[in-house]
């Protein structure tokens, strides 16, 4: 490579010119360096400010449990950062509409008033206006000055406020748009990249707040609602009813508690399984909710002072409705009727249709109550009263009911003692084949076992005085079991004696034993009967189990199964108190009974032609169904004769024979003159 000298300007003028160019280049180099450095500084500054902004927004998001708190602060931060005139936000409702959440920020409220006012309570449908477009497309939208003036739906107000540009941003959780932010500026929005970067990150933080809010709401909802039906649970009910109680006016009136229990629910659960039970509960809740919403809503529409209702599920098949600000107690009663009606239509469970009834207890607030819990207890009590009636229905709590209940509670306690102390005894009322001709003697055919309570202070107590309490308290199962075993035992002893004395099996008297519904519907009832038969050795064909119509109403299917089973062992079945309940022919036809017992009320009123017609109808029916008939409560010879004439074969009553203790009753079996041998 050849080295040559770089040519230098030799003359002075040339040198100066070249030096000047050199200086000029240096200057330009410096300017460029400064510009580069300034750009770096500006970017550094901008990013620091943006980071600080996002830090503040993140802090705010971390602090806020509530979207409405956070959104105001976020709008303020963004508007101040961007020097924007006005920022607002919309929540997206279930129908996909952007609803203004009345959260907005402007540093200059007075000049921005027209735009704020036209915006703050606006709702934008999908695709409508700037928020609607963001909602539709799921991405930010920009509106420049030209579009703002031409087609913006709030263009008049925007122009009045000197707005030159606008933008809308979605706040997303996953794919879902949960909120739309909208900003307005008095200058053009030029640096869209920087705006996107900042607002999108702010939106992410806002989405976190909404997510947390949702998670909290879900937790709170779960804590206060029944998972299966979605109704308020006991906790929420307690909270609301306490609050309502606190709000009661001086009269203390206006609050009512309805305790609702499903009748026949357990049977559905047992028969079809828990899944079926769940379907029934969900459907019941849905129907109740529909009835209540329609009634409360109906009031609202007519613009009357409206009452409020909280429907809750508080236990397995127990619901409670708390009615608040009730102008009239009748409303509670009417509502109860409507709830009962709502459950009249059967509920479909898989391929079956099932029916449940309701027992509803109502208690109204008043000056006598010092806590809402007392009110609940009284409503409970009224519900049990309704349930004790056997067919459900509505009972409103009253003072009388209260004292009756207290007495019953005391009675229940005494009954427990009685069971422990074996204070019960059985009496036996003879049942006769009615004489076919005047002067002919009625022939003894059997006995009905009747319980008496040999009370230590009060002497012999009739069953009517304590059986309802025993049923209500669930003690009837124990007492009924004792009766069954005791009666079978006594009968077995009697039969052993009679057999020894040569009585033929077809001449032996039978024993009729009352079985309470609760006892009968125990899942183990039939096997229990079988055990008693085996253990006592009583001939099954001489045992008659008497059940009432109530049993069949509660659960016809199980009733049939049990009846069929006990009959397969030879035990006879008898339908007690016939004519007083539903007396539905359909179940009578489907249930395997041997005997009908005509209720004593028809016999007592036999003088009334109407009663006679009913008796005749029952006798015809029984004859068609091949059932024998026993008339109860025959108190006169005329009644007995008339019944016989009408074709009634058997009867019992004071006229024929009073209930007697075991010894006296069984003495009736012996032929004349041999009784003393017993």
């Amino acid at each position, binding site marked *: 490579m050849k080295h040559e000298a770089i040519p230098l300007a030799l003359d002075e003028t040339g040198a100066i010119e070249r030096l*000047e160019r050199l*200086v*000029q280049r240096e200057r330009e180099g*410096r*300017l460029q360096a*400064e*510009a580069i*450095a*300034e750009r770096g*500084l*500006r970017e550094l*500054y*901008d990013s620091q400010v943006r980071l600080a902004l996002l830090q503040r927004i993140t802090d705010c998001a971390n602090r806020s449990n509530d979207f409405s708190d956070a959104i105001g602060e976020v709008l303020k931060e963004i508007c101040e950062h961007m*020097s924007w005139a006005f920022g607002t936000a919309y929540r997206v409702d279930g129908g996909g509409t952007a609803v203004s959440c009345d959260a907005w920020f402007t540093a200059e409220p007075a000049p921005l008033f027209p735009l704020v006012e036209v915006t703050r309570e606006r709702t934008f449908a999908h695709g409508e206006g700037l928020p609607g477009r963001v909602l539709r497309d799921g991405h930010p939208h920009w509106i420049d000055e030209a579009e703002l003036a031409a087609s913006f739906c709030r263009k008049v107000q925007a122009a009045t406020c000197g707005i030159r540009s606008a933008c809308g941003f979605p706040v997303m959780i996953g794919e879902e748009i949960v909120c739309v932010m909208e900003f307005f500026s008095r*200058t*053009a929005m030029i640096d869209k990249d920087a705006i996107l970067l900042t607002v999108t990150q702010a939106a992410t933080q806002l989405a976190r707040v909404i997510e947390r809010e949702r998670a909290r709401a879900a937790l709170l909802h779960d804590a206060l609602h029944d998972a299966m039906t979605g109704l308020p649970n006991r906790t929420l009910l307690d909270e609301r009813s306490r609050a309502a109680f606190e709000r009661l006016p001086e009269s203390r009136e206006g609050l009512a508690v309805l305790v609702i229990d499903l009748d026949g629910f357990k049977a559905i659960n047992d028969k079809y399984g828990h899944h079926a039970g769940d379907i029934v509960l969900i459907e019941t809740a849905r129907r109740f909710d529909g009835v209540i919403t329609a009634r409360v809503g109906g009031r609202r529409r007519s613009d009357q002072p409206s009452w409020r209702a909280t429907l809750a599920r508080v236990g397995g098949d127990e619901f409670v409705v708390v009615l608040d600000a009730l102008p009239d107690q009748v409303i509670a009663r009417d509502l109860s009727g409507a709830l009962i009606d709502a459950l009249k239509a059967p509920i479909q469970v898989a391929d079956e249709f099932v029916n449940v009834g309701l027992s509803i207890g109502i208690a109204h607030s008043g000056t006598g109550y010092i806590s809402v819990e007392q009110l609940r207890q009284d409503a409970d009590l009224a519900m049990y009263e309704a349930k004790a009636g056997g067919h459900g229905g509505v009972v409103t709590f009253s003072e009388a009911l209260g004292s009756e209940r207290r007495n019953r509670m005391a009675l229940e306690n005494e009954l427990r003692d009685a069971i422990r102390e074996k204070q019960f005894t059985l009496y036996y009322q003879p049942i006769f084949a009615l004489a076919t001709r005047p002067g002919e003697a009625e022939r003894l055919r059997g006995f009905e076992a009747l319980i008496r309570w040999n009370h230590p202070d009060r002497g012999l107590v009739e069953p009517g005085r304590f059986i309802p309490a025993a049923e209500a308290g669930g003690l009837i199962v124990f007492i009924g079991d004792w009766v069954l075993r005791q009666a079978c035992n006594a009968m077995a002893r009697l039969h052993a004696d009679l057999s020894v004395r040569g009585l033929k099996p077809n001449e032996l008297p039978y024993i009729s034993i009352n079985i309470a519904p609760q006892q009968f519907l125990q899942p183990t009832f039939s096997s229990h009967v079988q055990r008693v038969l085996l253990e006592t050795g009583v001939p099954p064909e001489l045992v008659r189990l008497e059940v009432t119509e109530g049993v069949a109403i509660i659960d016809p299917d199980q009733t049939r199964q049990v009846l069929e089973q006990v009959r397969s062992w030879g035990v006879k079945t008898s339908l007690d108190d016939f004519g007083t309940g539903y007396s539905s022919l359909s179940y009578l036809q489907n249930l395997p009974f041997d005997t009908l017992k005509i209720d004593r009320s028809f016999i007592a009123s036999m003088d009334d032609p109407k009663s006679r017609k009913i008796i005749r109808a029952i006798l015809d029916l029984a004859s068609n169904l091949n059932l024998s008939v026993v008339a109860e409560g025959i108190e006169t010879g005329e009644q007995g004769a008339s019944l016989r004439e009408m074709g009634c074969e058997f009867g019992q009553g004071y006229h024929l024979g009073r209930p007697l203790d075991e010894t006296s009753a069984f003495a009736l079996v012996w032929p004349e003159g041999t009784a003393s041998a017993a």
Partner: protein
Amino acid sequence: MKGVIFNLLEDAVIRQHGLLAWESLLEMAGLEGAYTSLGSYPDSEVVRLVEAASTALGVSQSEVLRWFGRSAIPLLHERYELFFTPHRNAQSFVTSVNDIIHPEVRKLYAGAGCPHFHFHDLEDGRTGVAYKSPRQMCRLAHGFIEGAADHFGDAVEIEHLACMLDGLPVCRLALRWSR
């Protein structure tokens, strides 16, 4: 004082009087003269340069500052065009000084002591500008406003109603804009 002011002064002098004129001014003021826009330099150095220019040109210091301000606007436009683009007239540009230009200056130079101009409407329809700064450079502001009017092709009449140079606590200018 921010280096950019020295740079603008240097550019203005060189454009009007040539490269060596700036060198002469530095010599007269007894200054080293190595200024970069990113640096900060004592206010007194600007004062000494203005004094030197005043002496050299035989005009008052106020006139020098006013000339400087007016001449600086095209230079500023070259360097910082983004401050100008959003505006359609000089009035809009001038009134953005507090909200846009000075905040931008602070982005580059943390802690820059930018003066505040208070704009308000006067009863006679003119725009009032109140200015208060220990540097007392109201004439520079005056020149900037004139330069802005030149840039946007507007006309402005500027009246000094009160001046800190007369020992008053605040400078007050009245502007009448016309196109």
